[in-house]
């Protein structure tokens, strides 16, 4: 079982755990945490797909010239972007969770009761 399949299996497992967490958790902060785990899993998958056994890091130094077999640099550039996107989504998600808590007084997703419905009738938006 070479190193690459271990990376791919770990990435796949993390993605599965993230999706499982989104489907089953009822606490909104935990749903955001599982989205974070899903995002870490996908980042791992992308880098693992660019991995080359025994490849050198894609930086040209005095010892390493470009003739040396290098790891694929493109997925690394993509994952750099994806990590910052994950941070942006987490920040906005957390603010929305705070507002959800301030208005619904609970971190639970299932808050839709009649108390909720009569709230909606009163408020008119726009």
């Amino acid at each position, binding site marked *: 079982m070479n190193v690459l399949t271990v990376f791919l299996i770990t990435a796949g497992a993390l993605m599965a755990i993230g999706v499982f967490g989104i489907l*089953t958790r009822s606490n909104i902060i935990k749903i955001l945490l599982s989205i974070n785990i899903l995002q870490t899993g996908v980042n791992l998958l992308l880098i693992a797909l660019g991995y080359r056994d025994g490849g050198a890091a894609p930086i040209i130094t005095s010892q390493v010239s470009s003739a040396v077999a290098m790891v694929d640099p493109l997925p690394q550039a993509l994952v*750099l972007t994806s990590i910052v996107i994950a941070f942006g989504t987490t920040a*906005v998600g957390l603010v929305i969770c705070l507002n959800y808590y301030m208005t619904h007084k609970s971190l639970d997703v299932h808050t839709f009761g009649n108390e909720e419905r009569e709230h909606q009738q009163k408020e008119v938006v726009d």
Partner: protein
Amino acid sequence: MKNRYQSLIDIAGLIIVGIAVYLVGTALTDTSVAGKGMNSADFKQRVSYRYVIKSVEPSAKMEVKWGESGYEESSANIVTSIVVNYRGFDTLGEVLVLFASSAAVSLLILKRVPKKTFPPTQIMTSSVPLVNLLVFILGSFIILHGHLTPGGGFPGGAIIASGVILMALVFKKAFRPQMYLMLESIAGMGILIAGLLGLMYGESFLKDFFPAGQIGELFSSYFAMILYTLIGIKVAVEISNIGFHFISESKGEEAV
């Protein structure tokens, strides 16, 4: 308030995810059928091979060595050359993602009612400035050496932002959103102007119109340095802006 059906939901979720993992796993790994499957693109055929040998047009020279110059892209760190030069528009989009999330946080955050918090002890107030000094030096080193060593605008900016948030936690500085918004838009405007300059001199947006430097020198890739500095400032300001909004009592709203 345990949900009555929680165990049922867990089992159902487990079944769904299990089936999905099985289907996707077999689909990605079965090589019985002809056709290119996962990870089957040979490294030399990939687009990234052209970035490694730094010549998009076919050229005789297939090897880039340390200290040589005259290539189309002169930064030693190939990932930086991709992020800044070859796929610069992605990075512009990237900076906009942070810009959008920092604006969304400032738009949506509510006024915070702080509980009784303990004033920072003497140890904190004396040690944090020292720690921050090192943090800022490390952050700016990572930004400025983005094209030589691993790092660049994003990690450097994040490290500086963590220092700024640490200072806000300890010293409760008066947080003025306008100053941050100004810095953000100036840095963003800087990136756009760099792009338009590329359009003026190099007839395409975000073109690196600087002379090719020597690979490995500090001042080899001016374009990477300039763009990464602007990105570093913008990332640092935006992340500390997001952090401030979570910490501060004042609602950023009425200030603007």
